[in-house]
Structures are given as C-alpha cells and as structure tokens.
C-alpha cells in the first residue's frame, strides 16, 4: 500500500526566491511526525505547499498514491492560530462545525448531525462547556483546542498541524499530547510543525529535520542526533540562503 504522504523532488519559491529545495520525503503510516528546524527553515511552507495553499515550483506530492485534489477527505489541517481573525463573530461550536463544510459541499447547511459531531469533538479536547462562547473570549490555549477539534471533525487519516504547541498553557499542551496519542492509537498519521527540541523525543516517533532542504527524516532514535541537529541549525546551510537571495536579486 502507498504511504500516507510521499513527496518527490519538491521545490517551493516565494516571489521567485526558493525557500524549499528538492524535498524528497516519505512519511510512514500511523506515526506522530515532527517537522523540526530553525526559523525560516520552511517548516510551515512545507505543510502549505503539500496542502496546495502555495504553488510548488516543481515536484510531485501524493497522498496514498494519489494527488491531493483526489484525497482531500483524508486530510485534516490545523493552521497557525495567528492566521485568523479571532474577533470574527462566531462561537467555538461554529468554528468546529466548519470542519464538516468540506464534506457537506456547496450550499448544504450543517444540520443536527454535524452540530452534535462538533460537540463531541469539542468534548474530546475538553472544551464542551465553552461551545457557545465567542472565540475572542477564549484563552490562547483554548483557541488552539478549538482548532484541533475542528480538525477532528474532519475525521481524516492524515493530519497536518502548524505549531499547535506555540504559546499554549501547560494544560493545553498536555491535552494536545493526549490527543496525538489517541489519534496514533486509531491508526492516524499526524505531522506537526514543532519548535521545542526538548520534547521531540517524548512526543514523536518520526522526525523531519528541515532547513531549506531536507537534512534528515526517519525514526526519532535514529535521526534525532547531535550531528544532524548541528547540520540543521548550524551555519553550513547559510550558503543556500545566500544562493536564494542571489536568485531573487538577479530576477
């Protein structure tokens, strides 16, 4: 069977400046996967490119052997919390219900079934009592959990989460970790952009080390080594950055 995510030779550019070079990657099924790398390494870009939110300059991306456009129903997405307007006039339940919109398709409104599913998912992240709150009135951690619940409603096979641990309280961090483990137990694959190196070993099975190119990818205990981390965070790769800058300036 094809793996949940396979990337062949993908290059992504912003305004002609390449930010990810020649990525080759295969993510195994049923694992918790961390994407790790310094700021500006292209971690979020990788996720966005894979989900078709950014155009790719070249390469091929497959979900279970097929392009994303045919496999959307298998994919759940948790964007970075700061990307949306939390003053928008919707309740937590409204936001979670948005996870069902893709399945509903054009013009069909969410009904009783969708709402109760959304409530269940809010309960899974410990937010049931906040269902009717306007989202501005939630703490950062609670907002993050609402986003997670929305992804759960999507009932996907493979999840992408962009920095779910950024700026959350300890209770939310624990809730997210528990959720990740539950998802793994149900055979889901979860790919998480992660910032804290200390917790990679505790939380994840598989790690992708990224700094504009793929430094290494594999099981945490094989790949998450001092040597690889030095390559990822060390100065040697700045040459790529300079090359990219040169490409941009010459345009």
């Amino acid at each position, binding site marked *: 069977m094809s793996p949940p995510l396979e990337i062949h030779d993908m290059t992504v550019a912003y305004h002609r400046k390449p930010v990810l070079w020649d990525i080759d990657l295969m993510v195994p099924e049923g694992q918790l996967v961390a994407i790790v790398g310094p700021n500006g390494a292209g971690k979020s870009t990788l996720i*966005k490119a894979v*989900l*078709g*939110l950014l155009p790719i300059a070249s390469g091929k991306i497959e979900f279970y052997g097929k392009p994303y*456009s045919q496999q*959307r129903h298998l*994919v759940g*997405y948790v*964007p970075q919390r700061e*990307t*949306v*307007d939390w003053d*928008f*006039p*919707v*309740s937590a339940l*409204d*936001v979670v219900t*948005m996870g069902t*919109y*893709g399945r*509903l398709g*054009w*013009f*069909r*409104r*969410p009904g009783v079934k969708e709402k109760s599913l959304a409530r269940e998912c809010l309960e899974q992240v410990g937010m049931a009592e906040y269902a009717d709150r*306007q989202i*501005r009135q939630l703490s950062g951690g609670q907002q993050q959990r609402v986003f997670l619940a*929305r992804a759960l409603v999507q009932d996907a096979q493979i999840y992408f989460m962009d920095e779910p641990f950024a700026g959350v309280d300890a209770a939310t961090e624990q809730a997210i970790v528990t959720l990740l483990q539950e998802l793994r137990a149900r055979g889901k694959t979860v790919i998480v952009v992660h910032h804290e190196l200390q917790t990679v070993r505790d939380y994840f099975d598989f790690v992708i080390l990224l700094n504009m190119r793929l430094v290494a990818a594999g099981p945490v205990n094989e790949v998450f080594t001092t040597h690889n981390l030095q390559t990822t965070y060390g100065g040697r790769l700045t040459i790529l950055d300079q090359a990219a800058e040169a490409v941009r300036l010459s345009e």
Partner: protein
Amino acid sequence: MSPLVTVLIGTSLLGCVAGAVGTFAVLRRRALVGDLVAHAALPGICLAFVVAGERQFSALLLGALVSGIFGVALVTFICRWSRTKEDAAIGIVLSTFFGAGVAMMPVIAKMETGDKAGLTTYLYGQAASMVRQDLLLIGIVAVIALALLALFYKEFKLLGFDPGFAQSQGWPTLWLDLAMMALVALVTVVGLPAVGVVLMAAMLITPAAAARLWTDRLNVMLVAAGVLGAAAGALGTVLSDNRWRQALPFDPLRFGSNNKGLPTGPLIVLAGTAIFLGSLAFAPRRGLIAKVIAQLRLRARVAQDHLLRTLYELSEPALPDRPELAAQAVIDSHAWNSLEAWWLLRWAQRRGWVDHANGRLRLTAIGAQEGARLTRRHRLWELFLIHGANIAADHVDRDADDIEHILPPEVVDRLEVELLRAYPPKQADAVPASPHVIPQPAATAAGAADHG
C-alpha cells in the same frame, strides 16, 4: 404611490441590502472595495453617456458596473505584479478613475445638447428624483443579492474566518472572493444614483460596523446590519425632505423654513453615522455605557468586599464577640470619599450585615459570617501568592486584592480547593491567620477597648 413613499422605500431597501452585503465585505477586510467600485464607476458612467447618447439609466448602470469591476481587477493585478500593497493600489486606482470621470464631465456637457446636470447627480446622488422604475431595479437587485447571501452563507462565513482552511478543504477561495466582490459592486452601482459616487462606501461599511457592536453571532449581525442600514436610509430620507420634516411635530435639526430640502445621500450617510455612534454608546457589553457600568459595578464590589473584610479584621481579635467600631476610623482606613462611604454603609446595613448608629459600627451575626468568608478567600490567595508564587509577604496584600475581585467565581473555587489541599487550615471553614500585620487604626483600637 406618492413620490415620497417611493423614495423612502427605495432608500430603505438600498440601505438594507448594502448593510447585509457590507457585513461580509467588512468581515473579509474588503470594506474599501465598495469605495473603489463607486469611484471607479464614474468614467464608465460618462462613457456610457457618450455611447448611449442620452440618459439611458440601464446603459449608465452597465457602464458603471463594467468600469467598477475593471477598477477592482486593476487593483488585484497591481498587487500581484508589483510590490505595491493593496491599500496603496486602491488609493491609486480609485483617484485615477475618479479624476478621469470628473475630467470627462465638462467635455461631455459641451458635446451633448445640454443636460450635464444628469451626470453631476452621480457625484452626490439625487435620491429625491427616484421613480418607480428605479425602485423596481433596486428591488430586483436586493432580491438577487439577499438570495445569493442566503445561498452562499456557509461559504462566505468560512471564507471570511479562515480562507487558508477553506482552501485546504478544496473551496475555490479565489472565485468565492470574486463572487463576493461582484455582489459588492452590484449593490454599489445600483446605489450610485441615489447616494452618489463619493458616499456610497458608507452605506456598505457603517451599518455593518454598527451591527458588529450589538452581537457576537454572524447571522444576527447580518440581519442587524440590514435593519440598521434600512433605518439609516429611511431616517436620512425623512430628514432631507422638508415636507416630511414639516409633518413632524418638531424640527429635529433646526433646519428652519428651508423650502429646497437637503441632499438625501449625505443625510443618509450622516444618519448611518448617528446610528453607529449610538451603537458605540449603547450596545450591550461592547458599548461605552455598558463598559462604564461594568467598571463601576466592579469598583462597587471591590469596595463592598473591602468594607466587610476591614470590619471583620478589626473585630477579629474579639471574636466570637463583635465589638463596636468607630465608623470614621473604618472609612479613613480606605480612600473613600464621604459619598462612597455613605453609600457603602447604607448598602451594608440594607444587607443586614452591619448595625450602624451614632457613628458606631458593629457587624451582625450574618455580617460576621460573610466577612469571614471574604477574609478567608483573601488570605488563601495571599498564602498562594507567598508560597506558590514566591512573592514577599509585605507585597502580597495589594496583589491579592487586585486579582481576587476580578477572577470569575469558578476559578476562585477551583483554586481554593487546591489551596486548601496544599495548606489545610485546622478546621474546614476556619479563616487562616493573616500572613502579614493588619494595620489597626488608633481610634478603632480604642473603640474595641471600650467594648471590652
């Protein structure tokens, strides 16, 4: 139907549909697109005037729509192919198109056999000249626009809140955005003859911004924006027409006996602004008055807590006896003015917590109970801050005060459970000893001695 009623229905309907469509535009942060379309429509109107030869209403509107949409497309193009930001691009295109339109006007006036006035009405609008045909057109556009809003409600909601997520789900966000902008353009163009190029944007933005203050739910906001927009339209129309004004029992803005009437478009816009300001003041929770009341309530509650705790702490050494205390000394220990002190004491008496006679205060039995509850909460907080947060004992009193009044009760309850587990007082309901020295005003100490 009398012409006045026609105008009134027309402007209300226009205000309603502009408010509803504007809601999504404002939430999608595209509020200025209406302004852009309106200004960019002017050269289209002029050209249509030349091509159609005479003042053909439908031709002019078509010209306006095409030219307005072309302006939007140009902004999109400029943003994508240069590093110009959207607001700058809108400014450039808007003023260029508007300038071109204004420059064309005298040329056309010379070229045609007269009626240049027909064109200048598009600058500021002329609602009073609305006839049944115009009303029909506004009605049709309103029905179409509201139907589309109802149809695309879910899609526009998702697009407005989280376009990235929408795209990842496979929604064609570009086309949805274009559909939304086309709706804005349609409503704008239909409103131009009544409100004018310069002011049309206000019809889209103001009702939506006002409606946002009244509610946290999108469907309610949509309806509220429609209602407020209609109200602005109706109010502006009534105020601008001297016949309506004369029918009123009073002269609302002291217009005097002006027989010419005032321009309707600007008055609609001003009425909308008045509604917005009213919302800003009176809206629940987000309104200024609601905020001031909430602030005063909190201050009152803090003062009440302080009064009761002070009385309890001063009585504490003598408990279970409840000594008489000098009222002035209690008041002086806080920075209360005489009005605040009078109000506080009256409140405490009414609740039956304090006996107050001849300048002497004495806690009642239930007052002492309530005081014990408050003091206990306060000291548990202090203990937590000292041991849990490592704050020096002499700094703690103020911090504890600040927080304990603001926290919602469920949080206080939970924290108290945890605190009790960590530092169990000897009996379950006992008030723990204060971790710092409680200042004793001299007069009160004497009062306590009197009692003893």
